[in-house]
């Protein structure tokens, strides 16, 4: 929001404001969910805006300040807030969004458990929450409930009270580790 200040000057026509300079665009190449992507964006464009402009709207914009976790993605396998990086910093990196984990036609067990356990209400935090859960289970395949809570502590949810999300991640961990066990 722009707060205009009351003008006390007796301005007569001529502008004292800075001129608008269109930002210079830089070329950026990286991969998203295994697909190569090339784009042009000004240096100050955040990775969040860049991804959403490119159509990856599964990366949700909740605060643009690293507070809510709705835009959580995996950057080279590690979870981060897309709003806290610049687009140009993605150069040559691998990005995974929630759609790289699973889609409606081919849901990942974490997504399935979220649905089964009632861990989704409004659904706005869900994509970021599932990405955070994916990183957690990649790094800690059999987490305790406390570790699950800590693993999603950077992702806000206003609807569920987190319980069913924690339940869903716990159930997904069980399913994923029993699948791995069978393969061995």
């Amino acid at each position, binding site marked *: *929001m*722009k*707060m*205009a200040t*009351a*003008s*006390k000057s007796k*301005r007569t026509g001529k*502008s004292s404001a800075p001129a*608008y300079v*269109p*930002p210079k665009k830089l070329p950026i190449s990286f991969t998203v969910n295994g697909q190569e992507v090339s784009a042009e964006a000004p240096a100050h464009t955040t990775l969040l805006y860049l991804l959403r402009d490119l*159509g990856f*709207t*599964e*990366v*949700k*914009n*909740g*605060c*643009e*300040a690293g*507070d*809510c976790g709705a835009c959580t993605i995996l950057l080279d396998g590690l979870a981060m807030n897309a709003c806290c990086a610049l687009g140009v910093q993605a150069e040559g990196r691998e990005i995974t*969004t*929630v*759609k790289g984990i*699973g889609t*409606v036609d081919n*849901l990942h067990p974490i*997504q*399935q458990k*979220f*649905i*089964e356990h*009632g861990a*989704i*209400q*409004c*659904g*706005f*935090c*869900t*994509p970021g929450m*599932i990405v955070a859960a994916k990183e957690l289970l990649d790094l800690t395949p059999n987490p305790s409930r406390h570790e699950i*809570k*800590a693993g*999603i*502590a*950077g992702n*806000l949810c*206003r*609807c*569920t*009270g*987190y*319980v*069913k*999300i*924690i339940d869903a991640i716990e159930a997904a961990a069980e399913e994923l580790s029993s699948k791995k066990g069978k393969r061995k």
Partner: protein
Amino acid sequence: MSERFYQEMFGGPDDDGDLIGADMPRVDGPPKADGSPVFAADHKLVNPLYVVPVTAPIPCGTLERVDTAEAETAPGVACVLTAKDIPGQKLYGMLMPDQPALVDKRIYSLQDVVAIVAADTLEQAEFAAGLVKMKTKALPAVFETQDALKDDAPIVQPEHPVAKGNVLTHLKIRKGDVEKGFAEADVVLENTYETQFIDHAYLEPDAGYVVPNPDGSITCTGPTQCPHMVRRVIAPVLGLGQNEIQFISTPPGGGFGGKEETSIEIAMRAGLVALKTRRPAIYNYTREESLGGKAKRVPAVVQHKIGAKKNGKITAMRIHIYLNKGPYAAVGPGIIKKLIIHSSGAYECDNVWADGYLVLTNNINTCAMRGLGVPQVHFAIESQMDELALSLEMDPFELRRLNGYKLGSSTATRQVLDQSVGYMDCLDKAEKALGPHPRENANGDGLLHGRGMAGFWYSTGAASPSDSCGAQVHVTDDGKVQVGVGIIELGQGSHTVLAQIAAEAMGVRFEDVRIMQVDTDAVPESGFTAGSRSTTIPGNAICEAIAEVRGILAPVAAEMLEGPAEDIAFKHGRVFIKSAPERSISFGEVVSQALLVGEQITGQGWFTTGPLTFNPETGEGRPFMVYSYGVQVADVAVDPDTGEVWVKRMVAAHDVGRAINPQGVIGQIQGGIEMGLGQALIEEIDVHEGRVLTPDLARYEIPVSMDTPEFTTIIVEEVNATGPYGAKGVGESSLVPTLAAISNAVRDAVGHRFTKLPITPESVAMAIHKGGVAV
């Protein structure tokens, strides 16, 4: 709609179908699980403009001049609009027009919008917004309720159509003789309770866009909780008929009451741009705008005096309530009404006097939020009950059993509760689930442990003179069922629950029903998605529409099956004669035959509660159709050094009527409690002279996963004869008792009564330091 209607039409409560009481997974689960573009900000438009507002620099005064010349010539700018560009009325409002669409002359708050800038990119619009110049003249402002009520206080809205001075609404309850009641009392307690500004803090910031249509009409898209109300409110401002405004609701990423006002603001201001420029206009709030600019939960000051006999019987209550409304009416009169009705708690009392004042100030505006003021008064009454139990040395459950509402009780408004009163059952079940007091398991951990309980009652339905809802049901020629109802799926699960009700009532499979996306061009008016009404009220309307459809299909089926139409039954997609269920035909076959003989397979439903009465001078009346009841018990641990409070466990027993989808009900209860925990311990929108000092989620903290207690959630099903399959509301009531339950637990842990929220670590540490408790 009566119990008889349901029994005749769909069988009695014991004759439940498979879908009622089933944990059906959410119909919108899969697309939300992979981040599909369900939200308004995910949509792509062709050649859009971006809208940015310019707000007032002072909280009270007059706008002398606005200079938009420089902004208008900035790169990419399509238009800069001020009040002179409004084609219709310059004021708007849900209940009365008292709010400027754009500031014309008078400024009432820092959140007032003076101008809107629209440009090709968001960046250009923001740049140009900084070039709008204005000259204002400040006038004395008033921010606090007690200041606004002084005789010499500046008048916030000197030309308000309804307000008297700064009092917008003054409601009264006058039951019995309170002086006599207090004279009969052995114990009289009087305390003043204060609650804070709270933000809804939904994860999806408010958003929307407006597209101009070739015929001069407009299509607004975005999250809302009241699509038809948006149309009604903005039509006079835009100079359009209501039939020239289409509102398509995208699923809100959380609403909690906040996406009523903002959906109006966005559609109205983006609508002005779209009409002026003939281009689509996108108006998405930033988080800063949402937290810093939009209306909040209304802060309340409640003076509560209660008297009781030695045996615990309450003899009198005298209550004064003051709400800091901010400058505009909006839904405020509804808030004060609902709040005063619930102000004496779920307790019988022959002598209740209450006065509720809705006070205008130049502070940030306030609006509906989960519970519509009732959590604030329950903080007062349930804290008072806790103090009463302590001074009478009585068990808090016993005190509530003695005084609590039972079948046949008369409320403060003299409404006799003639059905579906589950309070006693909730008290019993919650108490049974408790286990030992947390102090017994402390094991010398150095923390202070406490347990606190609170009860509640909470209405189902809108706080309006009647609560009505339309629905239409259409059977397509492939035998599928399409339900049109203006209720918004905002995360609470309404579209899953309503599909369960519709499938059960129609006798088809769950997957054959689709609840349509809410579009004012396609679905009937159904009122607000608010007031915990989105199962009960629309469920009734849908059932009525389905009764009509059955009336069309039954004679056709009767002819096909060669039996009497009144004996035709619909179940699981099959149609048969009740006495001979072995011979059945499919629902689709009946539909095909009906179409062949020229039937239109459509039903219209309109449910209304009829008049809901409340006398503003005496409080007498039947203000709501039915109420939910419940009990919550909090176990807390307090760090005596830092004053930090951790809620370790919550036991919640809620009478919700018949739980159509128990998993969804539990989700509502857990989510509500977490939100209540935030208001009790963490959250406060810090406002200084009308300006929000906490406009981001780092400074306005809400509960995170680490704050989540262990939950024991108990559903009590006291069937509601006036709801679909016996359902009542649950969405808001889940946080109504939470504030007091946690506060009472902290009282038990540290021996100090907190009367002001939030209970911060500083205030707890201070209370311990001052000797509230021996550590």
